[in-house]
């Protein structure tokens, strides 16, 4: 029997929809199970495990030199910084003092990695909200950084240039010149980013006030990196627990208090400027010296627990090693920034529109292999 009551005939119901695992806006194989009422999002549940490669388990098998190259494959956009984290934890455990030259080169390369990661994020962010042009502009600038990496490290993405005790080989003779050329060029290109996307009214309307995350929530979800700093939570590892050359360097931690998508966007754009300034201050003063200190062919860590955290382009990456004195760790745990940042997605988007989900998840800057490991 057809009911005549108008409320019954136009009754709405909640329903489930899968976003991903194969979706261009999820940047990898991330599956989001959405509960939607019309256009309003009621719940977002990330489903992980599609790209789990058991890297932590493989670390228990490998020697400490071999672990380094596995971390390339976690957060592939900040591969160099991941490598540095493992090298630092081994060096700290062995109480090995690396030369000043190594620290400076590591820091320059880490900041270049950060620029390249943020540039890619900027392009993809534009693409996610519908501005296809930005992608090409971001890749144009990234290409120059990739050339620097290819010339010095030998690879463009999975560098594996750090080894416990220093660097695999010295920097290429062209390195300093190339970096200087890049910085000069990038300084003229960065204002274009603002003209193309930041100042655009359509983009601002899509991002302002969308995906709000309060400072309290940012802390309680354990977010880090630009996501937390966009909410006004000062958490830069480079500032609070400095390592490598950051100990002696003067730089500003970028903070925004708005906590919305635009604030997180602005943090990343400003961080690119900061990284440029950092590289400029370092590139002329690379100290002379060795590029590595000799370690034993088989590195055995002393018994105990060791932890080291670094600031990757996405936030705080922690490496926790439990050693029983063998040539490989008893247990190794990565605290990856993407995993914690993803957990805040539900809080940010519930009550928002489905169209905003892509913009919000894009500012989390998710790299799925980093979340799953």
């Amino acid at each position, binding site marked *: 029997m057809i009911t005549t009551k108008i409320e019954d005939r136009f009754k709405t119901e909640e329903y489930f929809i899968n976003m991903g695992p194969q979706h261009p806006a999820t940047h990898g194989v991330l599956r989001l199970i959405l509960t939607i009422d019309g256009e309003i999002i009621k719940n977002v549940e990330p489903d992980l495990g599609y790209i789990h490669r058991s890297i932590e388990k493989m670390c228990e098998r490998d020697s400490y030199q*071999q672990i380094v190259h596995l971390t390339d494959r976690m957060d592939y956009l900040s591969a160099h910084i991941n490598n540095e984290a493992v090298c630092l934890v081994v060096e700290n455990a062995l109480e090995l003092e690396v030369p000043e030259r190594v620290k400076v080169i590591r820091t320059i390369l880490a900041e270049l990695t950060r620029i390249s990661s943020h540039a890619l994020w900027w392009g993809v962010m534009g693409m996610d909200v519908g501005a296809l042009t930005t992608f090409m502009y971001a890749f144009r600038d990234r290409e*120059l950084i990739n050339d620097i990496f290819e010339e010095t490290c*030998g690879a463009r993405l999975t560098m594996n240039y750090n080894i416990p005790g220093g660097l695999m080989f010295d920097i290429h003779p062209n390195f300093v010149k190339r970096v200087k050329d890049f910085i000069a060029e990038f300084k003229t290109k960065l204002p*274009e980013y603002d*003209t*193309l996307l930041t100042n655009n*009214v359509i983009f601002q309307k899509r991002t302002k006030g969308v995906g709000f995350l309060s400072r309290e929530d940012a802390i309680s979800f354990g977010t880090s990196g630009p996501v937390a700093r966009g909410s006004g939570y000062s958490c830069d590892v480079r500032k609070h627990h400095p390592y490598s050359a950051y100990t002696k360097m003067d730089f500003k931690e970028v903070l925004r208090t708005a906590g919305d998508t635009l604030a997180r966007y602005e943090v990343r754009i400003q961080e690119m400027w900061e990284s440029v300034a950092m590289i400029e201050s370092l590139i002329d003063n690379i100290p002379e010296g060795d590029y590595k200190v000799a370690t034993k062919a088989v590195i055995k860590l002393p018994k105990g627990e060791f932890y080291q955290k670094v600031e990757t382009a996405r936030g705080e990456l922690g490496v926790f090693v439990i050693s029983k004195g063998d040539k490989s760790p008893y247990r190794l745990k990565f605290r990856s920034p993407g995993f914690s940042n993803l957990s805040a997605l539900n809080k940010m988007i519930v009550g928002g529109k489905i169209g905003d989900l892509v913009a919000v998840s894009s500012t989390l800057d998710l790299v799925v292999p980093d979340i799953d490991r």
Partner: protein
Amino acid sequence: MSYFSDIYKGIKTLFQGMGVTGKYFFHARKEIITQQYPDNKDTLKMFDRFRGEVVMPHDENNEHRCTGCQSCELACPNGSIEIIWDRQVDPETGKKKKMIDKHIYHLSMCTMCGLCIEACPTNAIVWSQEFKHATFNRSELTKILNKPGSKVKKGIED
């Protein structure tokens, strides 16, 4: 009133953005950084540190530098390198010496981490800049690095 100023601002920023794209549209030639790959095959030169594949250089007498110490095999994280070796009598000294029979390299398993080349004490293996690895048959990716009939160079000990 704000309605009209919004429209004005929207159109203004739109044209500012289009100004950037327009600039590159008319000055495209200067800014091209793309490699026209299949057309520049002959002139394309990779960086000298580029990690293409592992090779074992041989000199004109068909001699290599590998002593069969297996450092690379141990350093490799995923077992891409296998060395089959034997102790053979060295005709000059009359003593038995470790010599490689086959240095097998599985390119399909290699992650290009460079640890084997770092580990090699005699610089017997190096990176080649070859990047065209595609084959029709997977077995072609398993390579024997030492050439048939090759010997270890004199005076190389580990």
